[in-house]
């Protein structure tokens, strides 16, 4: 038991030293605080400035969408991508100039960025047309309280 503990301490110390070096000099070291906003994201306050010229897209799994979503949001997830994308395309054609805002569960879930990129690519839209809501559904819910 004591041997294992000594070995664990040695291994942790070694890993710790490498981690400190990584934190100081690694070219891809993370920042110690989160940026408020990532590339391609928009804050909820920014979306509100667009008024009703917004099409909300919920990129979370279907069961979470059914549990609750932004009013008027269209579901779009990989489980039924083709049908849901066709639905979004028809909806968008009737609302030319509207911004599409995609959200997923939390502030750092990747799905919304992935879905936004696919929408841009498959519907031939630009970066100014499709955005990701910073903070996702979490931020939306927090703003409703």
């Amino acid at each position, binding site marked *: 038991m004591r*041997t294992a503990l000594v070995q664990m301490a040695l*291994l942790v110390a070694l890993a710790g030293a490498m981690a*400190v070096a990584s934190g100081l000099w690694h070219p891809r070291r*993370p920042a110690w605080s*989160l940026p408020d906003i990532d590339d391609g994201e928009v804050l909820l306050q920014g979306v509100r400035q667009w008024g009703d010229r917004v099409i909300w897209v919920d990129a979370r799994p279907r069961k979470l969408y059914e549990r609750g979503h932004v009013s008027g949001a269209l579901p779009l997830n990989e489980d039924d991508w083709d049908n849901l994308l066709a639905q979004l395309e028809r909806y968008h054609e009737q609302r030319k100039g509207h911004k599409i805002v995609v959200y997923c569960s939390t*502030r750092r879930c990747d799905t919304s960025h992935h879905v936004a990129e696919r929408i841009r690519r498959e519907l031939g839209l630009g970066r100014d047309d499709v955005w990701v809501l910073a903070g996702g559904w979490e931020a939306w819910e927090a703003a409703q309280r």
Partner: protein
Amino acid sequence: MKSRRIILLGLRLVTGGLFVYSGAIKAWDPASFAGSIDNFDLVPYPLAVAGALVLPYLEIVCGVALVGGVLGQGALALLLAMMVAFTGAMAWAWIRGLDVNCGCFGAAAGKTDYALALLRNAGLVGALIILSLAWGATRPAPEAGTGQSRTPGPQDGRRTPPSAPPAGPSSR
């Protein structure tokens, strides 16, 4: 007996190698791994950053220890603790329906298939438990040519007083 040793040696090398690989991918891009940890929404972001800096190297040094057959007991205990924590976090994220990338083998792996990831973790935990139980049989033999596994007792050049009781499995 010999085939058992070979199987255990293979298991040790494959498991250790897998952790070295997994750790190296994460260590290559700690910023993305910090995002992956943060996705789980379990710890404050600065703690996710600390984890993203430490965990990859812990996986690497423990994996190297396993492959090299040194500090094995400590490495196995640490890897088991990490795997239990990772698996718990993943199960919790699945229960909450989070659509995250676990970052288990780098952030580029895409959205996590929870069932598959939990199955893989269960396999790794099983391998680590087997190796922990059989650690004495998988280490290099102390004397070349004996062909026998080491018996538990004071070894590795350590001296113990004659009156000392028999020690547990040796430290290497």
